């Protein structure tokens, strides 16, 4: 049975093995390579996308389970050439290094901050338990997220 998905606003129909991970559909077929294949086991979060608004590791989602779902990847998060506020905060605080984890970080934190607009430092750290970064040592990412509240309060 063909599988219908909406990816970043475009509806596509796939005639493929329903066990194919969403990550492979995004990267190999759609050539949306923002989601990264780092562990393929659900630990690192570099492949995180939104499925019906929820951040999920796309490496662990067979497309057969996603019939009719609305997928948003990092490429579709903000209109082309613009940034959302999480991305902007990361630029302002110069927190990016190799960058491999950041598409996933952005997807996780964008949804988290919609839900929890003024989190504590510890809450942010807990929210990142499924997003590993090998380069930055995290703390400056968290500073950047906290700064968004201070900015908003101004």
């Amino acid at each position, binding site marked *: 049975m063909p599988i219908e998905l909406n990816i970043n606003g475009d509806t596509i129909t796939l005639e493929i093995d329903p066990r194919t991970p969403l990550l492979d559909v995004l990267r*190999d077929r759609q050539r949306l390579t923002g989601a*990264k294949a*780092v562990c393929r086991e659900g630990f690192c979060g570099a492949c995180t996308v939104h499925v019906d608004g929820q951040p999920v590791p796309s490496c662990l989602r067979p497309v057969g389970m996603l019939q009719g779902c609305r997928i948003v990847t990092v*490429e579709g998060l903000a209109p082309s050439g613009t*940034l959302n506020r999480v991305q902007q905060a990361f630029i302002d605080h110069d927190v990016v290094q190799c960058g*491999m984890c950041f598409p996933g970080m952005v997807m996780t934190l964008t949804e988290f901050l919609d839900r929890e607009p003024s989190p504590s430092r510890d809450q942010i750290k807990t929210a990142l338990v499924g997003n590993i970064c*090998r380069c*930055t*040592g995290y703390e*400056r990412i968290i500073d950047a997220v906290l700064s968004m509240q201070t900015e908003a309060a101004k």
Partner: protein
Amino acid sequence: MNRPTDPRSVVMNLPRRDAQDKLTGRTRYTSDLAGVEVLHAAIVRSTVASARILRMDFSPAIAMKGVRAIAQASDAPGLFGIGIADHPLLNGTRIRFKGEPLAAIAADTLDIARAAAAAVIIETEPLPAVMTMADALAPGAPQVHPEWKSYELLREGGIRGGNIAWEARVTRGDTDAAFARPDVTIVEDCFQVGRQNQLPFEPRCAVASYEDGRYHIHTSTQVPWTVRAVTAKTLGVSASRVRVTVPAVGGGFGLKFDCTIEPIAAILAQKTGRTVSLVHSREEENLTCLCRENAEVRIRSAVTAEGDIVGREATVLMDCGAYGGEQVFLTTMTAHTLGGNYKLGSVRMNSRAVYTNTPPNGAFRACNGVYNTFFLERHTDNIAKAIGMHPMEFRRRAVLGDGDIGATGQVFQGEVLRPMLERMAALRDKTPDCREQADGRLYGRATTVGTWFIFVGPSSATVNLNADGSATLVTSGVEIGSGTMVQSLPQIVAATLGLSPDEVIVKAADTDAAGRDLGVGGGRATVSIGAASKMAAERVRDQILDIAAEMLQAQPEDLVLTQGRVEIAGRPGTGMPITTAIARAEALHGPVSGNGNFTAPGVQAMPGCAAGHFIDAIDIPVFAVHDCEVAVDPDTGHVDVLSYKVVQDVGLALNPRAIHSQIQGGVVQGLGYALHEKITIGLDGGLEQPGFEHYLVPLACDVVPVKIDLYEGAPSIGPLGTKGAGEVPILNVGATVACAVSRAIERDVWELPLTPPQVLSVLQGRTGRMDHSHLSAVWQENLLEFVAPHRSLDHS
């Protein structure tokens, strides 16, 4: 013309130009390059650690639909290595480790390539194996390389034999006399560490094509020129037939300081005439990771009651795995790391790279410095205890100062470590301690020192000044995440030419476009590529100033380049836009460009005291002082890091915010090494942590914000007095955590990582004093007889 660039114009918190694309998922790393239009490759690997290959039958693979080509040993006849050429690209005769590449297959899809690789029939005859260094050094041990004598030597002076791939020694002063003195206390310790996986998020990967009779390799590497040279050497072709280009690199940390799978992709591209992508799976990547090596030491010191170290001797064993690789070079570093930090009246050290039938090791951020600093600082705490001196007081007295000589006899310039210790004391005083957070757990705190270096060596750069007033910088540098290519290099060139950094275009490495370079790593990019870039920019500046001087009827030395204009110094607005001077220069002579180059200056050592060393002295020493507070749960053995502080010697901080980020990141990698990144080797010789489930890297909730003080002004030959700042932050983390834990639990810590079971075992007295029986307490007994170097005629 010598016009110094004003450091004030170059220091800034320049943001990264690559951040926007990285944050929106638009950056294409090498692992993102290949879609369905290219062929995909998979590697056939050994499943045993030591065996003779009797037969390889590829016919089941060839019969599969979609299989396009096979690469095998005969396609890559040349051996490669560092110091010794001992490593085949694809092994067709004698397997030396589990997971060794034997062949590779290119197919229409990755699934087909993997299925075909699994279908290859390999018949082997088991050979005896050595899985540990103790086994490898035992009398009559099976040899990993029975043919070791026949290998081409790429470097003279190596002391080798059997399972000892390389031995580097240093002997300065009369150690025997020092140890025989009646007024000394002798302290002796053994320590050991396991391996550490760099785990950059982008695995090793390459996308190769064959164009106009040349190999073109896109790869995720730190060393494009090494990839070029090793590809040529293994394939037996001229290096001029290999082109290497490097997109954004998704992390390296030293793993990508070696050429590994690139030539395999090149062979398959040549055979198929198609573009071939070869990307390690996470499991392949972890199980064949070129880790920071496991290592063991025996160290002895003779110390007076006043804290003078009159004699020190040590032997370090470094596991190089099945092939020599980086460890051959790294034997050199023991003299400067384990032999660093402190004034030594006399010293002898021996560092041995030992072959085992395990996956080869490699380079990892501050390489052997990390564990040697752990060994040295724990040993230093034991010395202080033995002579009844406070460990801080001992360090204050004993650290290297201005004019002191290092292990190999080099003279250190400037008083650096002692003032850094004072700065750390001030930083500690500024912040209340975290003792209360220990909340009933065992509390410990330690401050340690570390010595590392900048790995200089050759770099080249070209600057083209464009008619629109922008400049293009062409080097072989690559951006691995540390920010050199997007921050320090454009900052240096912009300041020299009076431009803003965003007017400096930085070209990513392409060996067809830029000159030779040693690569990005060892903290060298800002220093070596930076120096070459600065020289190239100065040559451009001088041309423009000469032209402008004529036009303005002024002397060139009275002119300055600033804000896109040529001005008469002190009289803003009197000059002209730089584009006017460029137009004139183009009309008279053609487009404006300049070249720059740099290499290691070669600091003097004491003649005759070092043998088997690749460098005798360190050109740019870098020092670090770290402080850490921990709480140890006596019931579970869990170590909680409560605070972390760093005072780091940076020379001149070009981009302080970016350096802070490097320090935070480096310290956290060190915390993983100290506490939970554990690699074990099975009885079959294979690594046992294939993924993130078992190899535990730090998570956000495991870390603390590092308090940082950048120590500027120590002597450096780097451009504008810079030193690389990205490599060294990891240097003494293992040491500091271990010393703090040891003080918290009031027991000796001999080993890293300090996982909860390990700590509990020490705490409960189940781990006794460490003693390596395969490392003799008589230093000379750990030496190989000197073997006259065998030299081949071909020094390619």
